[in-house]
Every structure is written in structure tokens, then in C-alpha cells.
């Protein structure tokens, strides 16, 4: 098969990116409009504006101040909660998944093959199936209305990332592990000083996916955290939508949504090189 001409490739990619970027851009435009024009944009009665006529930057401050029952407090609380939960979950998932993946790749013990299969099988279970049993478990432990049900499970690994780490670590030459043994490291030391630094591309994928998943997670915080001051950004945004979901306030909703999305976009851009490298590696060798 011959590859298409470069200009055609470029044109196709450009057309594709317009399709994907347009909704985001439209959000930006609407978030900067006056209430009347934003409402009109929603109904399409005024055509589609590609540029805000008179950018209302104050919309952002207004939207964030309006989150929660007290000005600014609701937003700052939600932001802090999201940061704490996401950080814990990302750190926990990376550490536990890489450690377990390393064990599956390098340690031989009776039944490791069976355990690996069982672990992979857990990926087939939809989250909705385990929601109620998990809720009962965490209630039994007295963890409801704390962040523990959201953070602690992350420290017990994630089946998909364990699988990714294992496949990656299998490619690391055995002699590196042996050299570290001769240099005086035990299994934990080898994992920490040799394996984990070498797994950077996988760690980038694991961290970015986990970050996006946790940052945007709505169900978990909704089920386990009930007080307003405990809610994360995703839950706070939902309350905001319930409150300001009408056509008159759509500019505020877009502004709040954009602020919520921002960390994910920044993280993806920052980790893009590692991320794509990791995915390509997975595609070739995994």
C-alpha cells in the first residue's frame, strides 16, 4: 500500500482536529459571552459565533464564586478535595501497580500464573456490579464520609496498569536485576532504584489516565462523600449545574466546566511526549 500524499495527510488531520477541537472552542466562546448571547448560542437562534463579541472575563470569577453556598469557599474546598484525592490515588496506583507488575514479571512462585489470570479477570467486572458490595464493606469499616474509600483502594493496584507494568518489565533485561542484586539490593530496592525509573513511559500513562479518571470521577465522591465541604470539583460542578443549568446562566456553567477541565488538559500537554512514547511501545511490544 502506498502512503497518501503529505498534503492530503495534513488536510485530513487538520479536518479531524477541527472536529475534535470545535466543542472545546465553543465552550470557551460561550463562557466569555454575555448571558443573552450565551443563551442565544445555546438555542442557535443567533447562528454560531466563532469569536466572543465582547469577552466577559468576569464570568469566570462570578462562576467560581457562585459554587457552593458561600462565595469562593465552595470552589476552594472542592478544588482542595480534588487535589488531595487525585494525588493520593495517582501515587497509590503508580506505586502499587508497578510493584505488583514487577512481582508478576520477575518473581516465580507457586500459583503466580493462576493469580495473574484471576487478576486479569477482575477487569471484566463492571464497576456498577461491585458498587453496592463495596459500599457495604466501607460502611462496615466506618469509612463513609471520609476520603478513605476513594484513596485506599488505589494502593491495592489496578488490574490494567499491573498488566501494563508487567509487560513492560518483562522487556527489561534480567541482567539489570542481577547486577542490582550483586550491588546489594533486595527486591524492594531493585524495584525502587532500577525498575521504577526505567518504567517512566508506563508510569506516564498510568499517572495521566489515573489523574483524568479520578479528577473527573463523579460516582465515587457522590456515593461516599455527602457533606458539601467534602465534595470534589466534579460533584460541585454537578450541584452548580443543578443550580445554574438554565439558559440564562449557561455562560457561568461553561466557565466553571472549563476551569474544572483545565488541569487535565495541562497535564496531558506536559506529559504528551512520554505518554505517546509509552503507548507506541505498548503497541509494538506489549
Amino acid at each position, binding site marked *: 500500500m502506498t502512503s497518501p500524499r503529505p498534503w492530503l495527510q495534513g488536510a485530513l488531520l487538520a479536518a479531524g482536529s477541527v472536529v475534535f477541537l470545535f466543542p472545546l472552542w465553543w465552550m470557551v466562546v460561550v463562557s466569555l459571552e454575555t448571558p443573552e448571547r450565551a443563551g442565544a448560542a445555546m438555542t442557535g437562534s443567533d447562528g454560531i459565533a466563532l469569536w466572543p463579541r465582547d469577552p466577559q472575563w468576569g464570568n469566570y470569577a462570578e462562576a467560581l464564586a457562585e459554587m457552593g453556598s458561600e462565595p469562593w469557599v465552595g470552589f476552594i474546598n472542592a478544588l482542595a478535595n480534588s487535589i488531595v484525592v487525585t494525588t493520593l490515588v495517582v501515587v497509590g496506583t503508580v506505586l502499587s501497580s508497578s510493584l505488583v507488575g514487577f512481582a508478576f514479571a520477575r518473581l516465580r512462585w507457586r500459583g503466580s500464573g493462576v493469580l495473574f489470570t484471576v487478576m486479569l479477570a477482575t477487569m471484566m467486572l463492571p464497576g456498577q456490579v461491585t458498587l453496592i458490595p463495596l459500599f457495604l464493606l466501607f460502611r462496615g469499616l466506618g469509612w463513609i464520609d471520609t476520603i478513605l474509600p476513594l484513596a485506599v483502594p488505589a494502593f491495592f493496584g489496578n488490574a490494567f496498569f499491573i498488566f501494563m507494568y508487567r509487560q513492560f518489565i518483562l522487556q527489561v533485561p534480567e541482567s539489570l536485576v542481577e547486577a542490582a542484586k550483586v550491588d*546489594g539490593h533486595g527486591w524492594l530496592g531493585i524495584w525502587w532504584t532500577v525498575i521504577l525509573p526505567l518504567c517512566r513511559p508506563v508510569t506516564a500513562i498510568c499517572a495521566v489516565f489515573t489523574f483524568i479518571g479520578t479528577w473527573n470521577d463523579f460516582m465515587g465522591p457522590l456515593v461516599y462523600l455527602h457533606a458539601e465541604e467534602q465534595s470534589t470539583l466534579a460533584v460541585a460542578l454537578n450541584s452548580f449545574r443543578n443550580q445554574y443549568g438554565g439558559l440564562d446562566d449557561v455562560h457561568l456553567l461553561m466557565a466553571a466546566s472549563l476551569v474544572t477541565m483545565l488541569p487535565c488538559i495541562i497535564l496531558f500537554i506536559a506529559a504528551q511526549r512520554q505518554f505517546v512514547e509509552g503507548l507506541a511501545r505498548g503497541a509494538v511490544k506489549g
Partner: protein
Amino acid sequence: MAEVILQSVGKVYPGGVRAVQGVDLHVRHGEFIVLVGPSGCGKSTTLRMVAGLEEISEGRITIGGRVVNDIAPSDRDIAMVFQNYALYPHMTVGRNMSFGLERRRRHGSLLRALLSPAYAAERRAETARIQERVDGAADLLGLRPLLDRMPRELSGGQRQRVAVGRAIVRDPAVFLFDEPLSNLDAKLRGEMRTELRILHRRLGATMMYVTHDQEEAMGLADRIVVMKDGIVQQVGSPTELYERPVNRFVAGFIGTPTMNIVEGDVERDGGVLALRWAGGRITLPAGIAVTGTRASIGIRPDTLAPVADGPFRGTVQSIEFLGDRADVLVASSGVRLNARLPTERARGLREGDTIALGMPGVAHVFDGDGRRAG
């Protein structure tokens, strides 16, 4: 420096595969010993058992007077150079070299250094000592300019040198090398071989070295251990192995080009023994005792020469010129012989010519089981 003693050492893998059996070996202080043999002969497994990377199923290994069977690799006072170098890809050359020492620091805690000035001073002194050792090894191997580079920025030869440097920094009792030169091209391999030899003389350290390349073994070793199927065939100096191989396997394995073997029936005529094969007959030297009816003789290619009434008459099949010498392959009835002749004697030969080869005396005689006779 230390002695390494292997007593009846064996390795049985789960499933009953016996990789090494009954190895008895005494590596002396400061000796350069090379384990050589075809792939799967158990040489690497033996070395890895000495290193502690492979459990010892049977027997006992002693390093520097201490039985190490149950001692972790890091506590055996050894350093190992791996075939693929095993440099940590995410660390600079300098850090690769100091990594083992960093692990062994007695004053490593940064926190304690912050809290106690005395501890901090000890820690600084220790850091300086480590740096000194890294610099010393780097100077010895010409690695100074590379200390801040990453392994991926180095050529194969430089990586090999770093791997050796990493071993030197640790100042171990025994150096272990597992086919360290096999990833290098022929020219570089030759250079590194000379360097290793010089390094051994300079350090005076005990070194155990594994290779499948008998030429490398001959060039490096004080003594060579030839292994096959997990069993030691012969231990001796390169000249001993070359001149008095104990069996046909060693005879065929040691020496380039490979020794010619002619197999035949033993004829006894009074006290005189002779070997008869399809294409001829040759009298065996006096004083050689052969039991059984079959035997073989081994002839080094460089001892063969064109002789008018030589016992091996045949047709020249190919001629390979190697500069001052030429390898001539002759098909005699029932056997093919390789003769290494001076170029001027091979110059007149053409493929298809008939030639008779002979030698000054029969060098090696093996009985029917392949064991050396006499």
C-alpha cells in the same frame, strides 16, 4: 584477592534437568581462569553459582576461605561483568560505577547528616572516598571524560569498559566475567582481550571468565577449564590443553583450525600397533596402549605437509588463503583433512589436484571411547 574452591558442585533445575555435575575446581589467588565449552555445557551456570545468582543444588563453594552456599551475591565479595554489560540505563557512567558503593555506605542518611555535624563530616568523607575510587577506576580505563554521560551515548567498547570499571570500583576478592566480549566486533574484541590481560596483571586479582570462544580462552587464561554436558573435561594451562588434550572432545575444541580426527580399526602385529581406515594405514608410535578394537588419531592442521609418500592421499577440495598461510581441505578416501600450509607451499596447488599429506609423527591417539591413549 582470594581463592575460589568448588567441591562436587552440581546444579539440578526443577524438572530434573542436570546442568552441572560434580565440578571440582581450585582457583588460586590471583589466577585468571577461563571456563570454556559449547553452549549449554554449564559454564555460565557454574559462574552464576559462584556469583550467587543461581542456587547451588549440590556441593560447596568457598570464596576466600568462607563457604558461600547460603550467602547473598552482594555479601560474597565478588563483582560481575555481564554479557550485555547490564549498565543502569537511567544513571550516568559515574553513578553506574558508584552505585554498588553507595549501597554499602555506612554514613548514607541525609537526614542524620542534617541533624548532626559530626555525621555530616563522616558522610562527606565517605562521599569523597567513593569519588576517589570511581576516579581511580576511571583513570585506569580511560573513562574520565565519560563519567557524566549516559550509557546510551556510549559505543559498545566504551560500555564494556564501564562495566569493567564498575567491577573494579568495588575492589572485590573475585572478578566474574560472563562472556563479556561476545557483543563486540572482532577487532574490538581483540583489543579488549589485551586490555583485560594487562588489567589482570596490574590488579593481580582472582578472575573467573566464561566464554564459548576457545581462542579467547587461550589468549586470556592462566588455566582453562573445558566443560561439556555439565561435566569438567580437563583443567590445565593453554599449552597443556593444546599439547595433551585428555580426550577427543578437548582435542577438537581447543585449537584453530580444528584438529583432524581419523578413526579406524586397531591392528596388532606383534608389539606394533597400527590404525587402518578405508583409505590407508598408519603405524602408531611405540609405547601407546590402546584397549579395544577401534581408535582414532588426532592431527593438528599445521603439522600436516605435502609429502610424496604421505599416508593421506586425496583430492584438494578448497584452498583458503589467509596471508602467510593457507587452509587446504583434502578429501582422502573415508576422511576429510584440513591442512594449514605456508602460502608458498600452497601456491602451486589448484582445486582438484591430487596431493599426499604426511606429518612428522602422530600427535594424539585416542581409544574407542575417545580417551587419550598413552
